């Protein structure tokens, strides 16, 4: 099943999910679990923990579907946020000094990224890989730090030893570039 074609009937999918349709859930899982798992794995960097978290995340999505408001954002974006927040919460709760540790985590993000994306590339994302590699390294670094590391702008500025204004400008530039690349 292609994601593009299914987006057209996203409202039908949500309707079926709210009706607790098993087929709809299976489709949702098959479609999005690799992306969510990838995000979680990059945040927690532990296969077992990531698998447990993925389970929690889909239960959360399942229970909170009623609360999802299509007018406030896209379904996949919403699911990504659930996954990301759950994963970041878990590492912040687990670590006594999350702030200091995240810094070192973030430095290893690239390694994890390389491992997983090169070892298990999804066929439909091969084209994407070229696209993402066009992204300027300093911008990619910042996206990874903020999006996968859960850094605030202030924390990222401290981490990268950059002025806060530069970080904000760079985050915007990175997203704009990403937007253009995927157009």
């Amino acid at each position, binding site marked *: 099943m292609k*994601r593009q074609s299914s987006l057209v009937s996203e409202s039908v999918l949500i309707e079926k999910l*709210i*009706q*607790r*349709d*098993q087929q709809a*859930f*299976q489709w949702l*899982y098959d479609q999005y*679990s*690799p*992306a*969510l*798992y*990838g*995000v979680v*794995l990059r945040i927690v960097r532990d*296969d077992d923990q990531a*698998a447990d978290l*993925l*389970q929690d995340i889909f*239960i959360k999505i*399942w229970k909170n579907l009623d609360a999802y408001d299509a*007018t*406030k*954002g*896209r379904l*996949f*974006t919403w699911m*990504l*946020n659930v996954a*990301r*927040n759950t994963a970041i919460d878990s590492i912040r709760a687990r670590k006594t000094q999350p702030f200091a540790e995240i810094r070192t985590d973030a430095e290893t993000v690239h390694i994890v990224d390389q491992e*997983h*994306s090169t070892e*298990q590339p*999804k066929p439909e*994302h091969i084209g*994407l*890989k070229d*696209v*993402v590699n066009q992204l300027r390294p300093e911008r990619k670094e910042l*996206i990874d730090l*903020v*999006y996968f590391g*859960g*850094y*605030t*702008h202030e924390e990222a500025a401290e981490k990268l030893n950059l002025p806060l204004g530069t970080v*904000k*400008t760079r*985050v*915007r530039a*990175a*997203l*704009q570039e*990403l*937007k253009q*690349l*995927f157009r």
Partner: protein
Amino acid sequence: MNVTEYIASGILESYVMGAVSDQERREVECLSSVYPEIGHELNQLSEAIEHYAMFHSVEPPASTKDKLLQQLNFGQHEEVDDDEQTNDTIVRPMPVDMSSSHSHRTTWIVAACMGLAMLLFSFFLLSKLRTNQNALVSVRTRNDSLKTVASKLKADQVESAQVVALLSQPALKRIELKGNEKAPKGNLFIFWSAATKQVAVNVKSLPALPTDKQYQLWALVDGKPIDAGVFDADSTGSTTQPLNRSIARADAFAVTVEKRGGNPSPTMSTLLAVSPVKA
């Protein structure tokens, strides 16, 4: 607000990156639903992040899916939830509805009663007003008639006072004149005071005259008639009317019928009565 500036501020990028405060998040969600340009930009940025996440996809262990399928309850959501909801909706609003509709009915009854009372009271006031208006009209009529009476009484009183003044003059003489064959029932009195030279007439009975005629009194002094004033017979009735001529001497008084306003000399053919003044 400036939409372009807002889009350029970088807040949307921070939002899709999950690096905004709760307040900023609500702000972005609100503004993106209000301004289509913001919504469009947010959608594109979300798509970019989605692609980016897709790019980092990793196949999860197959066991995770199996665990989930075992753990979740499929096809039961509607029954359970709907039962709870319908129970709730039946139980909760009923007493509220009852009391509110009851109190509404009471309110309506009270309002209706008050309205009716007001209506009756206004009818009462209206009838009262009409009665008062009628009373006022009758009082005015009576007042008018009383005024007429009062003014007549006043005029009479003035006249009486004049008569009294006249009659109380010193050396007043009273001369009775009787009508001749031209006025057989004619009868009048002349009051004359030589001291004050005033003359007054009291007509007891004289024939009515045409409107262009008047009676004229003459004082005869040494056989010559002197104008002593004019008077009317019917309008004055039996009252005494002073005449506006000064008569110092008179041997006799005579009455003739003359044109209205009187003549300088008497018309002898109309002589009605004559009487000498007794010394």
